[in-house]
């Protein structure tokens, strides 16, 4: 069971899942908006007046603190639960502080890795909200609908990522 599933087969099943989600629940896959809504909800909870922020009040409070819980939050939570369940069931669950590829290049100190992950998370959500989606919303859902926005966004997601990976790891692809 430890062996990975064929990515083409798993991807095709994910495609079927997307079709069912649209047909049954009327929902296209997406994830990044949940983090803006999560920020609004946390800010509200700790006493920040979120109505001062235009983004949290625009479109009838679509991104504001009252927008959770919703379909997408449960979708994102579900992915975490699915990852946990599948890794435990297949014997591939592994507590790891630093990914192998990172450790081979930058060493196995969690501090630098965690700082990079935190900074990356900040930049990535600013980019996703600006672009209007992430590889789920723009990539999977956008390209499945042949949206121009999806093709443009995915090209620049990859372009930005390729440049960054090259700056971090240098030229050449050794494992």
């Amino acid at each position, binding site marked *: 069971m430890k062996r990975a599933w064929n990515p083409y087969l798993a991807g095709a099943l994910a495609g079927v899942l*997307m079709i069912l989600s649209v047909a049954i629940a009327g929902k296209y896959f997406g994830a990044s908006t949940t983090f803006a809504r999560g920020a609004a909800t946390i800010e509200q909870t700790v006493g920040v007046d979120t109505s001062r922020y235009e983004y949290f009040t625009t479109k009838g409070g679509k991104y504001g603190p009252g927008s959770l819980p919703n379909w997408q939050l449960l979708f*994102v939570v*579900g992915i975490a639960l699915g990852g946990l369940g599948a890794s435990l069931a297949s014997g591939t669950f592994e507590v790891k502080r630093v990914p192998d590829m990172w450790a081979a290049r930058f060493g196995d100190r969690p501090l630098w890795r965690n700082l*990079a992950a935190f900074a990356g998370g900040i930049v990535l959500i600013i980019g996703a909200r600006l672009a209007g989606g992430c590889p789920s919303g723009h990539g999977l859902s956008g390209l499945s609908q042949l949206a121009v926005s999806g093709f443009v966004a995915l090209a620049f997601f990859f372009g930005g990522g390729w440049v960054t990976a090259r700056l971090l790891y240098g030229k050449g692809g050794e494992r």
Partner: protein
Amino acid sequence: MMSLLYGLVSGILFGVLLQRAEVLRYDRQVGALRLMDMTIFKFMLTAIMVASVGIYFLKDMGIVSLSLKATGFGAQIVGGTLFGIGWGLLGYCPGTAGGALGEGRLDAAWGLLGMLAGGAVYAAIYPALKATVLGLGNVGKVTLPQVMGVSHWVVIVAMIVLFLGAFRVFEKKGL
């Protein structure tokens, strides 16, 4: 709320597929950005191929409707690039970070915290972005077949041929 249940169930199933195809892993995500390991693209592009056929078939039958994101070249080029930079640093995306934490990757937790912080930062800088980048090159909710003036099936077939060609290259080069 049925919608919440649908979100949870589809998230769990999607999380299982992502985990078993090893798409959640940092080494696979950054491996793709370094052009060393195309696992995540095999998964993603296959899902898009299957979903595009199913969604447009159901749309032609009048069963589902599209949910397009507006195309804004400023937003998607600048936002897409920023997302890519963050993705290269973090090595997980908004959909997969939770799943990576689920399979025991603790650095993903820092990415998730960064994403929540990014949501707050985005809300704070939104007025400035709205006055600049978000106003550039907006062409509305358009699809590629609309722009090209051809049937969506022509574009779907062309996209499938293109993706299959890419898969052939991946397999030939052992990526």
